[in-house]
């Protein structure tokens, strides 16, 4: 039965994982995601699951790898420096085509950084991070409710595509409390995993999970196979939300916590008659390029807002393809943008766009 409760983001995500049938969790403490680990330690045993605090993030991700090969639903979580250590294992999990859910509640970096929230791991999440030609499905919640909903989705999609799914949250989402509707538990939702290494039993043939392809022809075939899988994701799994974009001339592009701030900023400038809107990617891979391209073709200008010095903005520019200007505004190091400042940037952009449109064609400006 679904129920509505007030919960902290990290704990809600953990509970959602348990309700999605996750029975194994391997992790190592790091702020700001410790509540997730602690919640699993308390509650997994209650449902017959296993929590294990590993000796390191490297240990944790490889335990996840082993359990995933055994065919169970398994998760780990961490933050920046810990995710860096997990990258080796993530590459192996992707290269071995086994499903796992990985949570990154981002904190500031590079290096040891700080524990305040950022979005500075976007590149790492979406452009590999580990070695090799692979992609993760990357889900970016913007509320505690979405942390719950996207966690259920993450397990489903990981199994469906036999690919690791990363939930990319940040310290704000992890720490804040919001009312959430928790779904009814669905632990018995079993997915057939005939590939799992569970012992050969009565089968003729033993099963092998490996990412080793010594022959170049074979290795290329494998990479092509992965590419086809990622293309299927791009076709079927791209998720985004449009907010007041129907008639928008100025479109903010932001995900997660930054998107919430942008929503407030859009409302502020709408009061002044500026036709602003927001496109919020929910999947960062696959990236929602199509709606951005469409809006650009319709003549909109863009402002990408991130809690970083500018990472997703590169994907926005790729999607827009030079058709229209794309401006950037970001704060980093744990500083959170003020919606009023974002509103001012939207206003500025609207003004520039207006000027450009009234100017002579050869005087067109760019942001």
């Amino acid at each position: 039965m679904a129920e509505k409760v007030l919960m902290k983001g990290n704990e809600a995500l953990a509970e959602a994982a348990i309700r999605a049938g996750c029975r194994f969790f391997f992790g190592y403490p790091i702020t700001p995601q410790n509540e997730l680990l602690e919640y699993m330690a308390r509650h997994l045993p209650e449902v017959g699951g296993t929590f294990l605090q590993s000796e390191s993030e490297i240990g944790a991700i490889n335990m996840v790898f082993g359990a995933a090969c055994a065919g169970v639903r398994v998760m780990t979580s961490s933050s920046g420096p810990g995710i860096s250590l997990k990258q080796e294992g993530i590459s192996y999990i992707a290269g071995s085509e086994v499903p796992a859910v990985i949570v990154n509640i981002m904190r500031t970096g590079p290096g040891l950084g700080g524990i305040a929230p950022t979005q500075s791991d976007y590149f790492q999440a979406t452009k590999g991070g580990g070695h090799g030609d692979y992609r993760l499905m990357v889900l970016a919640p913007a509320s505690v409710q979405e942390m719950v909903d996207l966690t259920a989705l993450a397990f489903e999609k990981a199994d469906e595509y036999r690919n690791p799914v990363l939930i990319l949250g940040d310290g704000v989402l992890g720490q804040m409390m919001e009312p959430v509707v928790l779904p009814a538990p669905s632990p018995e939702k079993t997915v057939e995993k005939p590939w799992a290494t569970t012992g050969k039993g009565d089968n003729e043939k033993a099963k092998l999970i490996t990412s080793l392809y010594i022959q170049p022809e074979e290795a290329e075939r494998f990479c092509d196979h992965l590419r086809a899988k990622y293309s299927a994701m791009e076709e079927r799994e791209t998720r985004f939300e449009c907010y007041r974009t129907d008639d928008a001339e100025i479109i903010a592009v932001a995900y997660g916590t930054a998107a919430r701030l942008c929503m407030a900023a859009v409302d502020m400038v709408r009061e002044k008659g500026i036709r602003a809107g927001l496109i919020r990617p929910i999947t960062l891979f696959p990236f929602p390029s199509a709606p951005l391209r469409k809006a650009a073709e319709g003549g909109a200008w863009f402002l990408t807002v991130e809690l970083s010095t500018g990472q997703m903005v590169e994907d926005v520019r790729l999607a827009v393809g030079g058709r229209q200007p794309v401006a950037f505004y970001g704060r980093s190091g744990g500083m959170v943008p003020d919606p009023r400042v974002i509103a001012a940037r939207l206003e500025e952009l609207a003004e520039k766009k207006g000027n450009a449109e009234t100017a002579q064609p050869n005087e067109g400006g760019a942001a």
Partner: protein
Amino acid sequence: MGTKVFSRPDCLRDVASHYCPGCHHGIIHRLVAEAIDELELAPRTIGVAPVGCSVFIYDYIDTDFIQAPHGRAPAVATGVKRALPDRIVFTYQGDGDLAAIGTSEIIHTAARGENVTVIFVNNAIYGMTGGQSAPTTLLGQSTTTAPQGRDAGADGAPIQVCEMLNTLQRPAFISRVSVHTPAQVVRAKKAIRRAFQCQQEGKGFSFVEVLSACPTNWGMTPLDANKWLEQYMLPYYPIKDFRIPEGVQ
């Protein structure tokens, strides 16, 4: 009519080996296969393959297999065993794999007393990458990265893994064996079988170090390699049962 006294173990595939002449990996594979057969474990065994010359162990031993990142096999095995406690899970790792990059994973898996079996093949060198120093390389032994011979001052002293693990509370079975003579092969076989038996009976972490030759990277003939092993490795890595739980035959 003759009686058959010797044959290939059922779970050892009838395929050509990729190991160098005189390499001990092949012998050790066979002993693992024999133990699995005798205890009738094949249907419920999952092996974890390492990075190193023996990564292709999955081509030889006919059980389910997972290929792990360099040094991480004990963590991968932990994940499998926690998910499938009634299965038999073993890793097979070289000294570069287990005693260098994978020290953290082996120590903590042993410290937890994880009910898995680790076969540790110590040839005192990195085989696959062409003969660089390992943590187990002997003092004075020359390698491609210690051309003048390993020097304690510059490179540290070789790690005695069994002795180190034997300081931990939780391991159930720790033994060091060798395969350089037929008699030692018989002894090694017994240890490997005991290690699997230990897991089968739920006694906890079992560990067998097998001293092994790498004639190619030692730059010796197979026979000289065996002699070198006996002369130089045995004094520093004594053959010994460090720990045997009660009731394991």
